């Protein structure tokens, strides 16, 4: 099997090389004839690991991670806790709370009144999964989803928790998941980066996002997440200056290549040839990226599926549609961030808006991938960096409350990519405060994601500063029960 994968990889590269050779870019330059490898990696590995090759047969080829930044409250979305309504206003029993540390925001609170969700839940689909009324579209695709209700993390504040779930370390300066996958599996589309990032924001209380979340860390910078922005330049500096036609750009690059070639003849440095190559890649990206991102040719039923917001650049819906297009074009890891889920107060109002921002498009993405036959090979993940407390932060009034950070349990869902559809994994206790069954640590989650992509999390290592680093640091186990 491993041999087959290797053969496949070699053939793939050969085919690509030959097809590029016949493209005929109209240049006599050295560079345009070189084998194109847009995101060339220079880091040779000492442990016999071949970057760009899975360890075993992968179930998924690509990932789309719909990150809900700020930590959405599981009690209002997917983790149905009727008991909390019964206990409304009663203090969280110290036996349940245990010795858990609290954030500086509620540590000084004298009471911890439990608060039930303001919104109702119903069961849906054949799987009878509970979903709140805030997520009607998601409710329609529950049979494709695997809910994990027993996620837990180590950090209690946004910055370290975000960094932890994306890079496996709270401190940053490590490669994020997308960078590891780019390093481990290489790139499917040589005209697009393997790891792209799309940002959007709701009206809820927001937390920033940080470029360290899509950092390449100590890996070669070709593995860094490339942020696609909503502006006219989806990739920074992509657009040629005003007044320059494609023909004129081509002419400039031809002249440039000719001059660089003179320099190559003098110095013999392969870096010069590589540079010419990178300019040719840049040129091709200039055409490839806008073509991929053009939504004008999407049919009406697709626009309807994602909702009218998908035509408004910078919205979560537009990013979901873009995510499908990038993913279908071979982008290994598409990372979305939707900000605004940090409901310390005014939760009922804010979370309803946040849910409305993301519900339809998240479900649409699942439906869309499925109808294209892509869901099997695309792993979709939906979730935040931690959960929220079952007790209220601040004052509990008849129709208003807030919830503080809660690392002990939270809910995410996954779909496609060889994950069992229509199941719920893990349980929290009846107060939704502690995990009652099947805890899933962030490193377990990361190990499982890598596993679906054909990578053994203990073998995907990079030696830096004398240590072999992993996404899962020193722990993590694959959750086999959720794998189809």
């Amino acid at each position, binding site marked *: 099997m491993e041999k087959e994968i290797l053969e496949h990889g070699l053939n793939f590269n050969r085919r690509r090389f030959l097809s590029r050779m016949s493209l005929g870019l109209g240049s006599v330059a050295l560079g345009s004839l070189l084998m194109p490898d847009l995101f060339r990696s220079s880091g040779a590995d000492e442990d016999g690991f071949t970057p760009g090759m899975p360890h075993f047969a992968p179930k998924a080829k690509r990932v789309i991670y719909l990150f809900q930044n700020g930590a959405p409250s599981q009690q209002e979305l997917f983790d149905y806790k009727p008991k909390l309504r019964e206990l409304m206003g009663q203090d969280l029993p110290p036996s349940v709370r245990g010795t858990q540390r609290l954030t500086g925001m509620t540590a000084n609170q004298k009471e911890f009144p439990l608060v039930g969700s303001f919104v109702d839940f119903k069961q849906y689909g054949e799987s009878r999964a509970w979903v709140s009324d805030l997520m009607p579209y998601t409710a329609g695709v529950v049979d494709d989803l695997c809910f994990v209700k027993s996620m837990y993390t180590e950090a209690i*504040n946004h910055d370290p928790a975000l960094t932890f779930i994306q890079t496996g370390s709270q401190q940053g300066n490590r490669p994020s998941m997308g960078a590891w996958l780019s390093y481990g599996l290489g790139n499917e589309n040589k005209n697009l980066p393997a790891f792209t990032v799309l940002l959007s924001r709701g009206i809820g209380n927001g937390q920033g996002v940080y470029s360290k979340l899509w950092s390449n860390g100590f890996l070669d910078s070709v593995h860094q997440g490339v942020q696609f922005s909503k502006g006219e330049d989806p990739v920074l500096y992509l657009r040629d200056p005003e007044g320059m036609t494609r023909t004129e750009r081509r002419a400039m690059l031809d002249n440039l290549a000719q001059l660089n070639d003179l320099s190559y003849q003098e110095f013999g440095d392969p870096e010069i040839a590589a540079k010419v190559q990178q300019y040719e890649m840049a040129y091709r990206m200039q055409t490839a990226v806008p073509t991929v991102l053009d939504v004008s040719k999407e049919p009406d039923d697709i626009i309807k599926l994602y909702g009218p917001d998908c035509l408004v650049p910078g919205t979560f819906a537009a990013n979901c549609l873009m995510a499908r297009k990038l993913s279908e074009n071979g982008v290994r890891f598409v990372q979305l961030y939707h900000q605004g889920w940090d409901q310390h107060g005014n939760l009922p109002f804010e979370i309803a808006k946040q849910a409305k921002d993301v519900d339809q498009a998240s479900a649409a993405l699942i439906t869309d991938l499925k109808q294209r036959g892509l869901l099997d090979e695309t792993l979709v993940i939906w979730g935040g960096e931690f959960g929220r407390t079952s007790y209220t932060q601040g004052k509990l009034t008849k129709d208003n409350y807030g919830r503080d950070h809660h690392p002990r349990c939270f809910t995410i869902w996954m779909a496609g990519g060889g994950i069992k559809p229509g199941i719920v994994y893990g349980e929290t206790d009846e107060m939704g405060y502690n995990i009652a069954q099947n805890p899933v640590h962030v490193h377990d989650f990361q190990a499982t994601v890598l596993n679906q992509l054909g990578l053994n999390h203990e073998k995907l290592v990079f030696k830096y500063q004398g240590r072999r680093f992993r996404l899962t640091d020193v722990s993590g186990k694959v959750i086999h029960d959720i794998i189809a």
Partner: protein
Amino acid sequence: MKRLSYYLLALTLAILGFMQSCAKQSSSLADNEKIPEVVSYNFDIRPILSDKCSTCHGPDANKREAGLRLDDPESAFRALKEHPTAHALVAGKPELSEVFRRISTPDTSLLMPPPNSGLKLSAREINLIEKWIKQGATYEKHWAFVAPKAPKLPAVDQDKWPKNEIDYFILQKMEDKGLKPNEEADKERLLKRLSLDLTGLPPDLPLMDAFMADNSPNAYGKVVDALLKRPAYGEKMALHWLDVARYADSHGYQDDGYRTQWPWRDWVINAYNKNLPYAEFVTKQLAGDLMADPNGWGGPGTPTKEQLLATGFNRNHKITEEGGTIQEEYRAMYVTDRTDMFGKGLMGITMECAHCHDHKYDPFSQKEYYKLFAFFNNVKEVGMESVIGGPNTYAKKPLMEICDEDVQGILSFVNKLDTNRLIVSVMGDLDTTRSTFIFNRGVYDDHGDEVQPGTPASILPFSDKYPKNRLGLAKWMFDRKNPLTARVYVNQLWQEFFGTGIIRTAGDFGMQGELPSHPELLDWLAVDFMNHGWNIKRLVKQMVTSATYRQSAVVSKEKLQTDPNNRLLARGPRYRIEAEFVRDLVLSSSGLLNRRIGGPSVKPYQPPGLWEGATSGRGLLSMYVQDHGDKLYRRGMYTLIKRTVPPPSMAIFDASNRDLCEVRRLKTNTPLQALVMLNDPTVLEASRVLAAKLLQEKSGTEAKINKAFRLIVARKPTEKEVAVLSEYYRSELKNLTRPHAEKALAVGEYPIPKTLDKVQLAAMMRIVSTIYNLEETITKS
């Protein structure tokens, strides 16, 4: 035409094949390499043990298997715990040594390292271990933890070549491998290399003319001296130090608010320009607050404001402003950051590995980590002092205030532009001692034993004669017996001038670090540096006046094959310049560069929406308000660094994000870099401004191209180059329409002279922009 393509195709395939084969060869070379006559523990065996065995049989007591430790002879020669009749090592007898038996057995259930570890020994490694045991299995202390002694200069055959001591060591290695040094680089290229290395700027025309005209034997020495005197020298040297000290203009966590730490950066530039000895440079930064008098090394009294400002060094780390922070968790993180920076940046060791457990490879215990930690644990600080807000949050206590009279006096190098209150985070200890405990598994609230300040014994025990504070720590660092301090800084400087350190892993001199390419040279330089009062400029001058440095960068096929990474330095350094210097080169060659030194960081052109898209919406840095006027044209090192969204054109060229101490930047080559050079308004505007200047001169097209080329590439173009560019200019003149030309010119805020013909200007602008995009332009070669 067709023939040419075939020729190029063949050439390309040949190069491809060549590149692939040399990549393979470099690894197979090591495998085929001969086993040395005498196997050295330090250079042959330790790297194998450290990399392949230490995880289970190394210094970490908690992960040790079978009670066996292979890095420690006492344990390795002792009877095995589980098989008292057997021994891991029996000197002279590999067949009786369990080590050799277990690494060479065909039985996979016995094989070491165990197959499931993913680690494997090569045939050569097994042979080396066998021979080492045969020769008596002698252990040596790790070379980097033994204080350097100046070795004798080696004898060389080609004894006319060396210009100074460096060259003897370099040449000897070359001769061992049968290589000859390259010729000296041509004067123009040499001047560009030198100017970039000493000032971060390309040479200007008067300097080029003067140097080309100077035929005296000491012409090169004179230009070195002249460049060392330029204020830009301090800026150039400071840049690397800003990476080490993780300097930035924002607090770094979550909301990522603004901070005014830049006066510390001005201090660094000034210190390099004044040529502060390295010992004083570091001591002030580590312990300026504990130094009493301006010349002093301790004693009662209060430090000067200059000494205090230097200590901003240890407060450049990220500081949280996130509500709900648990104070002690973050305070512990700051102390950890300082400890790790001290290890990596100043001592060249991966101390951070001992944060959670004993170091797995180097002889540093977890206890020793916290002893070092104790030096930095007494600061009058809290985890979260204030949430994001106004000017009072731009520095965190302990802080100092810089008032206008300081700027007129002792802090005259601080480029304060207004009379607003200016505060900087600096060091200051509590009056009492905060107890330091080992953090079990690195967890801040899981305390183990209490520890006292101290240093890793395997490097150098902490002497009783030193005070147990940061000033004592500085004295320990600059103790002549300290084996690391001088080597580490010499190596960092070497890396600045030759691209790669004598030890490639500049942040890891430990057992997992790479071995030095020229160990004797490193020791010679380290001892010489100490003997000459830690004089930085002197050391810089030694490096750049060596024959090694002055070689041409031409790579022959032979050298590319035997030494693809130029570790033997049989040719001059050739690599892309740092992100900040790419910007500097563009601005200075076009004449736009604003040469003001220091002051608050600035916000030049940046693609819209980057800050806005990633912000929480709070604070001064939530929206990018671009600067105007001459603030648009300042050197790259003054571009404001907002840690969570660092300046994109810098990040694309591998600049540090300044999250943590960094001693070595990556040097990558990506299409995004091509896009920056092609489309960044900074480059386009510079092209337009320079084109306008050229067109205003009364000269012919070729003369204009010639001048642009000299300004940008720092050499005269060849006839062929001029021909290509002139032809390109003529065709652009023909192609460009007036409306297109007008659009092309509408970039940047610098005014366009009204008198110029738009089509001509746009055509010339494209020529200049093409020159900016040449590989050679942003390459030191």
